[in-house]
């Protein structure tokens, strides 16, 4: 039988550390990437200030590449900025001025590029119609950030913006992994593909110009990852942001009258 412990004894630190080690208490350490991911959400919410521009986002679920309908594409746009900026500062500036790098007529209504942020966007379709949809900031760290699209967006998938060092200095990259979300958007893919090219190439050139690199060359690479369509996702057309944007526009007078009546 061991002697009863002396309550007056001052226990040395080494003895305490040994006791803790022997107790084998499991220590749960959060993975390094834990703070970079968005919290899990079932349905997206848009704050009251941006509700008017987020009508096609609020209440929607996010869609990964396997929730879309059309063929799965990986498209990569890369530009070189040389030694004018390092990857971390490039991403920091890109996050801070994200919407400013978009081309005229397109609006990004995000406040901060932080994990979990929901940003409504308005895309100029070129046919006199603004397509309203949005993105969720799925992931963000010092050298990259990724958006995930909601139901109704033209594409189901992810868009990753990153910067990295290579032999030529610092490169900025946009990589999308997407399926057209429904049969209508799949039919429009040949046109949308060209619009995507123009949009993201111009964005990268604007990012480069921000750092004083003018007329930067942008390299584009397209890989067809899966040529099969996912037919059971054809019903995604119900959420089609193009159709809903048109309906929203047509019903604007009704909403105006209702608002006036409510005072």
């Amino acid at each position: 039988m061991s002697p009863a412990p002396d309550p007056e004894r001052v226990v040395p630190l080494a003895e305490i550390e040994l006791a803790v080690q022997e107790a084998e208490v499991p220590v749960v350490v959060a993975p390094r990437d834990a703070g970079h991911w968005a919290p899990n959400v079932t349905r997206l919410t848009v704050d009251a200030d941006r509700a008017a521009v987020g009508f096609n986002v609020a209440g929607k679920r996010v869609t990964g590449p396997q929730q879309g309908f059309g063929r799965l594409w990986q498209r990569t746009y890369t530009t070189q900025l040389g030694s004018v900026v390092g990857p971390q500062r490039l991403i920091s500036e890109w996050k801070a001025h994200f919407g400013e790098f978009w081309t005229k007529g397109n609006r990004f209504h995000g406040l901060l590029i932080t994990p979990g942020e929901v940003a409504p966007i308005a895309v100029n379709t070129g046919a006199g119609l603004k397509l309203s949809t949005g993105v969720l900031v799925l992931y963000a760290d010092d050298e990259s950030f990724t958006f995930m699209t909601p139901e109704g967006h033209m594409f189901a998938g992810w868009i990753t913006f990153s910067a990295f060092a290579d032999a030529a200095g610092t490169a900025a990259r946009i990589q999308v992994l997407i399926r057209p979300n429904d049969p209508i958007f799949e039919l429009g893919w040949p046109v949308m593909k060209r619009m995507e090219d123009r949009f993201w190439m111009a964005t990268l050139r604007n990012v480069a110009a921000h750092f004083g690199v003018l007329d930067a060359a942008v390299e584009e690479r397209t890989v067809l990852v899966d040529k099969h369509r996912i037919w059971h996702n054809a019903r995604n057309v119900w959420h089609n942001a193009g159709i809903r944007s048109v309906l929203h526009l047509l019903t604007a007078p009704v909403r105006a009258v209702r608002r006036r009546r409510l005072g």
Partner: protein
Amino acid sequence: MMASNCEASVSQVRGLAVVALSGEVDGSAATVLGSAYDAAVRDEPTAVLLDFAAVDYINSTGIALIVSVLAKARSEGRRVVASGLSEHYRRIFDITRLSDFIQLYADVESAANGVIEGASA
């Protein structure tokens, strides 16, 4: 080319090809993951299991790589399942909606049991 901190080993467990990943699954893991998948399907297994038990980092480009593998498997008519995900990575699979179309198991043994039961059902 970026150096990869991801490693992969391929083995067989009762007809299941197991790709055991370790380290960091990020953009630099493309070659490792692609080669491991190609080695895993060489003997026409019942299914391919991606085991994440020894993975301690996944970023969004890593998740995109996993989707590329799944899409490739799907186009080849192969089933892919996953095991060994910590609570954190299960949550990531939920957020990204990967868990909607990939069966998750606690470990390699339960995955092998699950795939065999599924095949015989």
